[in-house]
């Protein structure tokens, strides 16, 4: 039905010839825009309702004194559904560590949260299909679990800033549980809020997609970043680390890269490097981590992301 509508607007209403470059680009743009905004609205709303059941305080309780491995898996999963503002990473880190959540488990949570989020899920799903989305979520979780376990295994508590252990937690007041009606109202409000923040990125992403779909040759990047180039993955990661963007902002680039022949693993690695390793986040984390631990964190993440990139280039 959506396809018919897009075709009607492009070929009948605007009078462009079927099969013409401009016509196809416009058709693709209209169809994808409507499809993705429908998906975004529905999925963000559903995830917002789910998130209202997992405030950080509850997540912390679930993770306190969890053993390695099981704790890391749980933390990575909870990273997807626990809402938190990136600026609260510091109080959250202190709150977790003070309440007895192991350092490595805390890291699994902090790694998965920015990497796997609802906007990324919708855009990947809408533009690349569910398989790529599932692979992205799966590898995101894998990176978070492995990264957290490695940091936990190295026993690096000595490189956490001392004051973190001196801050005393208050009695920790808790809010009363919202009613279901309140959860729905909150979800509606946050869906509108997120859409307001990302709509422009999304349209740009689809616009770029539509343009290169019609105009740039399909194998444009294959020579430089196709599966044959063994250095493509580390180069993509090296380029991605200093770039800072949320998932919504990076997807236009990712889409263009993949359309034009960059291989899947390289694209995934690039996207993870951009979302999971960013300079502003490092500056925030530096408040609670000594520089040595920060360096170890960046090192482990870089190596793990590169490994994931190679793995997917090999098997896809």
């Amino acid at each position, binding site marked *: 039905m959506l396809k018919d509508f897009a075709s009607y607007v492009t070929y009948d209403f605007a009078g462009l010839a079927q099969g013409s470059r401009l016509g196809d680009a416009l058709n693709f743009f209209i169809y994808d825009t409507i499809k993705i905004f429908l998906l975004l609205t529905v999925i963000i709303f559903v995830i917002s309702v789910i998130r209202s059941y997992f405030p950080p305080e509850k997540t912390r309780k679930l993770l306190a004194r969890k053993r390695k491995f099981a704790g890391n898996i749980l933390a990575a999963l909870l990273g997807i559904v626990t809402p*938190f503002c990136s600026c609260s990473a510091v109080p959250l880190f202190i709150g977790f560590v003070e309440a007895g959540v192991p350092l490595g488990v805390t890291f699994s949570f902090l790694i998965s949260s920015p990497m796997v989020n609802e906007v990324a899920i919708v855009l990947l799903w809408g533009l690349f299909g569910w398989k790529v989305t599932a692979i992205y979520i799966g590898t995101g979780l894998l990176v978070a679990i492995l990264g957290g376990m490695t940091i936990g295994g190295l026993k690096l508590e000595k490189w956490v800033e001392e004051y973190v252990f001196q801050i005393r937690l208050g009695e920790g007041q808790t809010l009363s549980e919202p009613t279901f009606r309140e959860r729905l109202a909150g979800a509606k409000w946050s869906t509108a809020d997120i859409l307001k923040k990302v709509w422009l990125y999304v349209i740009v992403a689809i616009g770029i997609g539509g343009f290169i779909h019609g105009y740039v040759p399909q194998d444009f990047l294959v020579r430089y970043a196709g599966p044959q180039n063994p250095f493509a993955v580390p180069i993509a990661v090296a380029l991605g680390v200093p770039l800072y963007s949320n998932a919504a902002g990076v997807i236009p680039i990712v889409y263009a890269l993949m359309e034009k022949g960059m291989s899947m693993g390289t694209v995934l690695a690039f996207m993870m490097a951009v979302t999971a390793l960013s300079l502003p986040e490092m500056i925030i984390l530096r408040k609670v981590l000594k520089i040595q631990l920060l360096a170890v964190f960046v090192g482990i993440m870089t190596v793990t992301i590169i490994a994931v990139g190679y793995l997917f280039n090999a098997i896809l």
Partner: protein
Amino acid sequence: MEIKVLGPGCANCHTLEQLTKKAVEELGPEFTSAKIEKVSDLQEIMKYTMSTPGLVVNGKLKHTGKPLPSLEKVKSLLKEEA
């Protein structure tokens, strides 16, 4: 009335502070005398919550974290403590 907006200093915390100011203005005379304080000291924040931004009215925690409350919600939270 003593109002505290908790946050280490980021866009969301700033938005909540603005919302609170606006709510106080719109609620009228009995609220305009309210003292709004922005709290960015970690030890002070951690007394109440670890998920910023937070809103504390007369020592009572009224809101934490994301999503931010709407203007109407902030108004009703303030009225509860009036």
